[in-house]
């Protein structure tokens, strides 16, 4: 009985050490929890996979969305999804103003796809606030493109349609 208790205590101690080491590694490299309103706050039903968007873009007669890049203008200039527009960085007040101005004249049922691709999805500071703004403005058909790593890896390298320039 006593031996059993010692074994349990020992296991707990080992687990605690492993957990502490794991936390230390995370703290050392700073890969902490994403900030509020990061991409993680976007409901899964509103997330669009790259292959789905590409299929939509290729399909004839399909209801094409308005595609807005809400990240870095410099990254947009290097490569952006064909037909998409730059609409301001979602992480900055100025960027959100630009986005608001762009969508202001549109019907609230407009099909809009937001994307960024600046950084890994959980670190993206732009798509969360941009999505929230459109939702708060009453847009009901907004999707956010899921780019797990970045635009280069998850869109350009897959050979999906790209354009360059501002």
């Amino acid at each position, binding site marked *: 009985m006593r031996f059993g208790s010692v074994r349990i205590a020992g296991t707990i101690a080992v687990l605690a050490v492993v957990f502490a080491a794991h936390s230390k590694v995370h703290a*050392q490299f*700073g890969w902490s929890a994403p900030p509020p309103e990061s991409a993680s706050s976007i409901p899964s039903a509103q997330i669009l996979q790259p292959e789905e968007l590409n299929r939509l873009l290729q399909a004839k007669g399909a209801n094409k969305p308005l595609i807005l890049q809400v990240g870095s203008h410099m990254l947009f*200039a290097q*490569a952006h999804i064909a037909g998409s527009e730059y609409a301001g960085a979602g992480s900055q007040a100025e960027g959100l103003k630009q986005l608001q101005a762009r969508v202001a004249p549109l019907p609230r049922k407009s099909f809009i796809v937001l994307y960024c*691709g*600046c*950084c890994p999805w959980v670190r993206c500071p732009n798509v969360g606030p941009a999505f929230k703004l459109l939702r708060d403005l009453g847009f009901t058909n907004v999707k956010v493109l899921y780019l797990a790593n*970045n*635009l*280069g890896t998850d869109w350009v390298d897959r050979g999906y349609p790209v354009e360059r320039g501002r």
Partner: protein
Amino acid sequence: MSADARSRAVHRPLLGVLLLAVCFAAGAQTATPAEPLVGKKAPEFTRRDLNGARVDLISFRGKVVLLDFWATWCASCQVEMPVFVQWQREYGPRGLKVIGISMDDDPALARRMKAKLQLNYPVAMGDEKLGQLYGGVLGLPLTYLIDRNGIVRAKFQGETDLKTIEKQLKALLAEP
């Protein structure tokens, strides 16, 4: 011919074809490297840093260069940069030169971050031209290691274990 021998006679050519297919596939993979810049001369560039000083990549020949593309909106970059400050201090005397390239749209943001993180290495503003030169900077963080001869030896895209970068960095510093 026994049944066993017949079976071997039938399967041997099939195995050969399979082996050839595997070799061909492996060959095809090595023929198209994922990182076209690695192993090649680092593209030259000259910029002014945020203090107005000239940053000329060729002038760092003989040093190991850690070229870091970053931006103020990149959370992972802000984790890496204090470590790069530490490495510049620690490995600088052994020949390390860290160069930061901000991919921010607004230099004022980069200036503020440079001051906040007390970066002890030059930071210049990037643009799409420089991005294209380095194969397209389409996601951050992005770090290149360039050896003393100006050859790109490694590329790290996205969140990378900093110990992996440090290990490779130390190996390059140990080279003549």
